[in-house]
């Protein structure tokens, strides 16, 4: 096969303008469509309808910890109670939960078997519920998350 010879001596001037145009267009597109989003996370809750009534009693299951969050007239948090006993704040709630379940968080541990039932006033601001879930579900210790109770459920909503 005959090989085509190139004239190596000639200097070919490539016009860079269209490429630079396209590159800048691309950069403008990416810059404009960039959306800075805050990192988000989830609290996973499994809550089938009517499971409390239908479920058979489980020997392994410990009685649920009932946390009541009462709202003030403006929806702010008025009081917290755990199993009927008043709780000072969410840190106190965490300490009490830790007192119940202890530090053992392995499989079949008390923390895994215990369930928290949140009973919240209808008008309570949702941010308080997330704080309560945060308090009962774990704590950050030396940058590591120590998990406490994973099973969380809500009592049916009560209007009024």
């Amino acid at each position, binding site marked *: 096969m005959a090989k085509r010879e190139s004239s190596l001596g000639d200097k070919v001037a490539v016009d860079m303008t269209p490429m630079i145009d396209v590159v800048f267009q691309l*950069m403008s597109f990416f810059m404009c469509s960039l959306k800075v989003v805050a*990192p988000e996370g989830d609290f996973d809750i499994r809550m089938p309808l009517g499971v409390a009534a239908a479920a058979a009693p489980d020997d392994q299951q410990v009685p649920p910890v009932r946390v009541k969050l009462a709202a003030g007239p403006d929806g702010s948090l008025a009081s917290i109670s755990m199993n009927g006993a008043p709780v000072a704040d969410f840190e106190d709630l965490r300490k009490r939960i830790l007192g119940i379940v202890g530090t053992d968080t392995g499989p079949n541990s008390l923390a895994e078997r215990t369930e928290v039932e949140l009973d919240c006033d209808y*008008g309570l601001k949702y*941010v308080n519920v997330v704080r309560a*879930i945060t308090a009962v579900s774990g704590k950050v210790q030396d940058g590591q998350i120590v998990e406490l109770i994973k099973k969380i459920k809500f009592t049916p909503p009560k209007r009024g």
Partner: protein
Amino acid sequence: MARKRGGDPSSTDIDMTPMIDMTFQLITFFMFVMNFSEAEQDERIQLPLSQLAKPVEGAMETPITLQLTNGGAVIYAGELVAVRDIGGYLEREKSVMLDAGKEPSAATVIVRADGRAKTGEVQDIIRICQEKGFERFALRAQYDEG
């Protein structure tokens, strides 16, 4: 200050290589940083902060996102819907899932509720979802770095 004069003014060759290199680097950076996921995030929602909110890992199986505003309306697929009306939309989701051979219990309902919204309304949403057969919920919060 004295200005330095160049040699031949008729042949000014600018070396474009560093600029093109830098521009490509910038494009690469923006491509990596750009979020291509179809995460439904609405700036009207101010999520509550939590240090324990687990970052979302990978894609969820059949996620349904319901966003509750401070005013008590639900943003579903970009539409503002009253809480009591979301049942119809969820029924449609359910029938789509059943047609695809999936049970509604396999879906995860992501609840992105505003921190100032009423808890009762969040519970109303959960109850309506439960009535339609959905039982997995993910209460979304903004990760608080402390």
